[in-house]
């Protein structure tokens, strides 16, 4: 879920497709940490989300990578299913925080 949230945050910044390192930095920003997610943890989670249908990925055009003289990236993007999941999970959290701010007991 944290990955989907981070991907949603990237999307709000206008980044529809992201690569692993970009996502790791976004995750660290959200959690206010300096240490990035471990290689194994990050790419294993990405593979699982892809198999669950929450992410889809493609290899970057090799010409672009060659032009910029760097290795080719694997670019991920959220699927429609993942966006609805993120939306559903973020909505009740906001309501709870409003209730807490008002001093009401959560339902």
């Amino acid at each position: 879920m944290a990955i989907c949230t981070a991907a949603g945050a990237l999307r709000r910044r206008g980044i529809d497709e992201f690569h692993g390192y970009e996502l790791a930095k976004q995750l660290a920003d959200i959690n206010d940490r300096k240490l990035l997610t471990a290689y194994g943890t990050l790419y294993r989670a990405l593979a699982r989300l892809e198999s669950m249908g929450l992410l889809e990925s493609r290899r970057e055009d090799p010409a672009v990578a060659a032009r910029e003289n760097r290795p080719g990236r694997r670019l991920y993007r959220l699927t429609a299913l993942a966006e609805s999941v993120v939306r559903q999970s973020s909505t009740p959290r906001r309501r709870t925080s409003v209730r807490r701010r008002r001093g009401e007991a959560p339902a």
Partner: protein
Amino acid sequence: MTGFAALVAACVRCWTRLYTWRMPPAVRDARREEIESDLWESSHDPAITQAELVVQMVMRLTLGLADDLAWRFAQVTVPRHVAFRSVTALGVLCMLLLVAKLSRMTTDVPHLPEPPLAGRQVHRPLPDPPPPPPPPGAGPGWKPSLQYGRTSYSVVTEGPQRVLITQVQPIYPPVAVAGELEGSVLVRGKISEDGRVIDTEVAPAGILGRSALHAVQQWKFDAAASRTMRPALLTVTVRFRRAQ
């Protein structure tokens, strides 16, 4: 990238090659390319210093080892017939080990290599020791409560023959007699210069073996004629048979 950062990056690459070794080429290459891309992006990130880069790479590598292995094993799919054969073979192996273990627990003497024939003294089994005297007041139907094992031994020595001065008969443990446990045990050892039996070992080690070992350790031979001589080798066979 500094030399140290390049070294850490090489470690990350090596580890990635290791845990993706012998995987399907598509999966293997995809993971290696992703890691390569990540390394490049992090090394060209202007927001972090070289020191931070090294720390990040080391921590990301070490904290992800378990996940790398878990991912690797999740990718391995074993065909059902291969899994069945492996489990069957493992079961057969366990059975064989169990049988071997049980056979070692019996009282038969294992086929240990015999010592060289040169200079060997062979002593036939001694007659059973006389029964202990009956306790005062015992009736005519009294039977001795202890039985002994029958010993035969051989000594291999380079010099003159070693003479056995003190021989202690191994007691046939009453528990073994009651449990009808019979068999032979082999005791090996060396005879020191002063005639003591040292460096002893027994096979099989059990209740009979312990009794035989305890007795042989109390044996005493005459002193060696020469101090430069290598210690003589002693082999004792003890047979425990219940009295009819």
